[in-house]
């Protein structure tokens, strides 16, 4: 799985390939190094996501340091999120532009 980060207005982390249990360590290492605040995860290029990866996303969504938003999940990911009902606990937006502006290092209040 490839992990790239771009910063143009919003900082977006894009994951590409298969996000499964073998890739969770690399993902968690990336999160550990990330600046707390808004985390936009672009999953449009993820071919498959397994339960370990879903658990990693749910754990991240509950991490008070971050405001996690999933950007434009691919069709397989979208369906898997629905079948597992995890779409009910994650914030999913279709475009980066739909994400609210935040100051770097800050997250949404409450939650």
């Amino acid at each position, binding site marked *: 799985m490839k992990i790239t980060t771009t910063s143009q207005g919003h900082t977006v982390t894009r994951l590409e390939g*298969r996000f*499964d*249990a*073998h890739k969770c360590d690399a993902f968690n290492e990336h999160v550990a190094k990330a600046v707390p605040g808004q985390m936009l995860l672009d999953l449009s290029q993820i*071919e*498959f*996501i*397994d*339960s*370990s990866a*879903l658990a990693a996303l749910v754990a991240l969504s509950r991490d008070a340091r971050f405001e996690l938003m999933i950007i434009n999940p691919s*069709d*397989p990911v*979208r*369906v*898997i999120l*629905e*079948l*597992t009902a995890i779409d009910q606990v994650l914030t999913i937006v279709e475009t980066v532009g739909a994400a609210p502006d935040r100051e770097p290092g800050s997250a949404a209040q409450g939650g």
Partner: protein
Amino acid sequence: MTITDYRRWAAEPNTAAVALSVVIPCYNEEWRILPTIGAIATHVSSMGLTWEMVIADDGSTDDTVDLVRALDLPNLKLLVAPVNGGKGSAVRRGVQAAAGDLVLLADADQSTPIEQLDKLKAAIDRGGADIAIGSRGAHGAMTENKNAVRKIASWGLNRLITLLYPLRIRDTQCGFKLFSGRAARLLFDQQIIDGFSFDLEVLYLAHRHGFAIREIPVVWIDAPGSTVSTTKVAITFLRDLALIRWNEIRGRYGASKPQVASVL
């Protein structure tokens, strides 16, 4: 559009004849089954054919059955076994319940990504093949994360099969196999072994009946959480190699049919 095709499949019962059945045997797969169903349903729904999924549970003691039942998908058949009878028994039940002109066997862990189906289907659609099997041993195959012990065990068992049986197949055990409906129903009506050696038995029977088998290189990813120990696999497999021979000698597979095609 893929997501639209999936939503239609998930909401509306099939009214046309089923072109493809995807049979997934599973045992205690609560952790893996939903992502697998999602991945398969998304891809196959976009293929433009009438299809169904058959989940053949093999006596799971976890929440596998409840999770699948709760999806309430109109084109998903859920078969529940009272006890764990072995993968072969689950696949047999699944195939016997399948209505498709083509029958795909796929594992619950998505170790062979469902997109590989396209290659297998193309091999049968082109003609000349009744069965297209995913192969980790064929030229062009890719495997990821397979540990060294399993690699050595697989190589050893495959060599033994080649020596003992007239099957020029490099990988009999990959769980990703596509059958014509006719071949699937005939073979699984005859197939006896309940354990995971049923793969070899089915291919042996297919060769015996003269079905044309194509071996197609696939991507295979060793999914974590395998329920099988390598040592147990090897021992059981060796036992079943002998069992297939013994079944043949005792006439349990019926009279031999003349060979009309060769294994490709």
